[in-house]
C-alpha cells in the first residue's frame, strides 16, 4: 500500500515526460512547416514586465526576474530550433541603474549567477553552439560581472552556429556616442599617419580642404562599423512584452525598418504562440519589404 503513492508519482512523472517529448516533437514539426517561408535572421527582445509579474502573483521581488530568466531560456530554444541565427536581448539598461540600489544589486547578483551558468556543460550555449556577445558600456558594471561576461565571450568565440547578443549596461544613444568617438579617433589616427593633420594651420588655406576631407571621411559606414551591434545584421523583428509600445532607448539606429510587435503578455508569460505570431506576420510582409530593399 505504501508503494502506491510512489508508483503513482513515477507514472505521472513518466506521463509528463512523454507529453513533453510529444510536445517537443510536434513543435519541431510545426517549425519545419513554418520554415518553408522566409525566416527572420535576427530577432530582438525587450524583456519587460518581470516586476509586474511578481506583483501580480504575490511573489517576492526577485522572483519575477528569475521567472523571466526561464521564459528567456525557452524563447531562445524556440528561436534557435526555428532557425533564427541572431537573437538580441535587452537585459539591463543604463537607465535601470537609477532604480533602488537593492534592486540593482539583486539584479547584478542574478546576472552574475546566470552568466556563470552559461559556461556549464549542460547550458544552452553548448547545446546550440551559441556565440555570446555582451553589448554595452561594460565599464559601468562591477568587476565580477564584467570579468564573467568577458570570460563567456572569450570561451564562446569559436562557436559560429548561432549568436546571442546580450545588451547589458546598454543605451542606444550611448552606443551611438561611443561609435562617433571611435570614428573620430580612427580618422584622426589615419590623418596623422598620412601626415596631413596640422593643428597649427588653422588660419591657412589648407584648413578649408582639411575640414572637407575630415567631413568626407566620417561617413555612415564609419559610424556603423564602430557600433558594438555591427557584429549582427539589423533586427527583422523587435518584440517587447507587457504591452508597452516604446523602444526605451534600445537599438534606435538599427530598428529603422524593423517590424515592431508588442504582445500584452508580461515577459515571464511569453510563449511559443507570441513567437509564431510575430514570425507569421513577418512572413506576410516579407515580400513587400524585399521589393523595397531591392529598390534601394
Amino acid at each position, binding site marked *: 500500500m505504501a508503494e502506491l503513492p510512489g508508483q503513482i508519482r513515477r507514472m505521472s512523472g513518466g506521463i509528463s515526460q512523454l*507529453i513533453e517529448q510529444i510536445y517537443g516533437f510536434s513543435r519541431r514539426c510545426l517549425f519545419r512547416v513554418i520554415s518553408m517561408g522566409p525566416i527572420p535572421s535576427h530577432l530582438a527582445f525587450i524583456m519587460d514586465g518581470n516586476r509586474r509579474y511578481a506583483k501580480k502573483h504575490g511573489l517576492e521581488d526577485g522572483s519575477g526576474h528569475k521567472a523571466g530568466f526561464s521564459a528567456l531560456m525557452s524563447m531562445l530554444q524556440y528561436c534557435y530550433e526555428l532557425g533564427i541565427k541572431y537573437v538580441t536581448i535587452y537585459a539591463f539598461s543604463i537607465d535601470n541603474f537609477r532604480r533602488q540600489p537593492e534592486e540593482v544589486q539583486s539584479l547584478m547578483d542574478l546576472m552574475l549567477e546566470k552568466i556563470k551558468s552559461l559556461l556549464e556543460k549542460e547550458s544552452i550555449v553548448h547545446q546550440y553552439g551559441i556565440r555570446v556577445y555582451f553589448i554595452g558600456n561594460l565599464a559601468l558594471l562591477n568587476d565580477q560581472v564584467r570579468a564573467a561576461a568577458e570570460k563567456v565571450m572569450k570561451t564562446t568565440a569559436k562557436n559560429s552556429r548561432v549568436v546571442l547578443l546580450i545588451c547589458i549596461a546598454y543605451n542606444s544613444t550611448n552606443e551611438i556616442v561611443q561609435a562617433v568617438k571611435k*570614428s573620430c579617433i580612427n580618422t584622426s589616427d589615419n590623418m596623422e599617419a598620412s601626415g596631413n593633420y596640422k593643428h597649427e594651420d588653422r588660419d591657412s588655406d589648407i584648413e578649408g580642404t582639411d575640414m572637407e576631407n575630415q567631413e568626407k571621411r566620417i561617413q555612415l559606414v564609419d559610424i556603423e562599423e564602430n557600433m558594438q551591434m555591427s557584429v549582427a545584421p539589423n533586427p527583422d523583428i523587435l518584440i517587447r512584452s507587457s504591452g508597452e509600445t516604446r523602444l526605451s532607448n534600445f537599438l534606435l539606429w538599427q530598428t*529603422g525598418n524593423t517590424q515592431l510587435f508588442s504582445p500584452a503578455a508580461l515577459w515571464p508569460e511569453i510563449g511559443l504562440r507570441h513567437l509564431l505570431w510575430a514570425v507569421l506576420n513577418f512572413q506576410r510582409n516579407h515580400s513587400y519589404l524585399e521589393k523595397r530593399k531591392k529598390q534601394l
Partner: protein
Amino acid sequence: MLSLLSSESSLSSFLFLFLIPCLFIIGLIKIKAARDDGDNKKRDEGTFVVREEELQRELMPRHVAFILDGNRRWAKRAGLTTQQGHEAGAKRLVEIAELCFELGIHTVSAFVFSTENWRRDKIEVDNLMSLIQHYRKSDIEFFHRSEIRVSVIGNKTKIDESLLQENHEIEEATKGYKNKHLILAVDYSGRFDIMHACKSLVKKSEKGLIREEDVDETLIERELLTNCSDFPSPDLMIRTSGEQRISNFFLWQLAYTELFFSPVLWPDFDKDKLLEALASYQRRERRFGCRV
C-alpha cells in the same frame, strides 16, 4: 506546484499546436500572402470612440509626431489617382495639426517625405514636391492667423532651389510664434540626422569650440535637426495604415516616445482616431527605465 503550472501551460500549448494545423487544413484560418488584398474590414478594427471631455488637458503630450502612411492605398481603394491620395493626405495633415493645437499640444511634426521616397516614380515625386510647394503658398495666411511657427527639416541638397527658398521664407516669417510649432520633415532620414549632428560636432571640435572627450548625448542632441524645437523628442508618435515600423523617421528622438499604430489609412485619420490615440497615450505609464 511549479511543475503542475508548467505542465498545464505545456498541455495548452500542445493543444494549440494541434489545433492550428487542423484549422489550416480545414481552411478556417487563411494567412494573407499578398499585402494589398484590400481587406477594408480590418482597417477600422480596434478603434473605439473617445469623447474630448474624457481627455485630461494636463496629460496632453507636448510633442506629437505623425508618419503619414497610406495615401496611395487610400487612393487605390477609392478609385482615385495617387496624386489625389496625396492631396487628401495633405488636407488631412492641416486639419489634424489644427486639432492638435486646439487640444493644447505644443509641437506637431510630420514625416512628409523620406529620403527613401526618392526611389519612387519620378512623376509621383515631382507631384509630391509641387504639392508641398502649393501648400506652402496657400497656407501662409493660415499660419499667420493661427500663429503657428513652421519649420522644415531634412537634407536640403536634393530639393529644388525655389522650394527651398519658399521654405526659408515661411520659416523666417513665422519664427516669432512661440505657442504652436509645426515641423515638416521633408527629405528626412533619422540616420542622416544623426550623421549630420556628428559631422557638425567634428567641425566644432576642429575649430576648437569643443573637445572630443566632451562629446556626449546632450551635445549630439543639440546638433540634431530637431534643435529648432523646444521639445525635440516626441512624447507620442502615431503611424497610420497599420504598419508597425519606424521606417527611418526620428531614430534618436524616439528613444522614450510612446508609439501608437493605427490601422486606418492616413486620409481617413480623423478627429475620433486622434482622440483615441491620445486616450491611449494618457493611459500609459511612462517609467523611463526606473519607476515601478
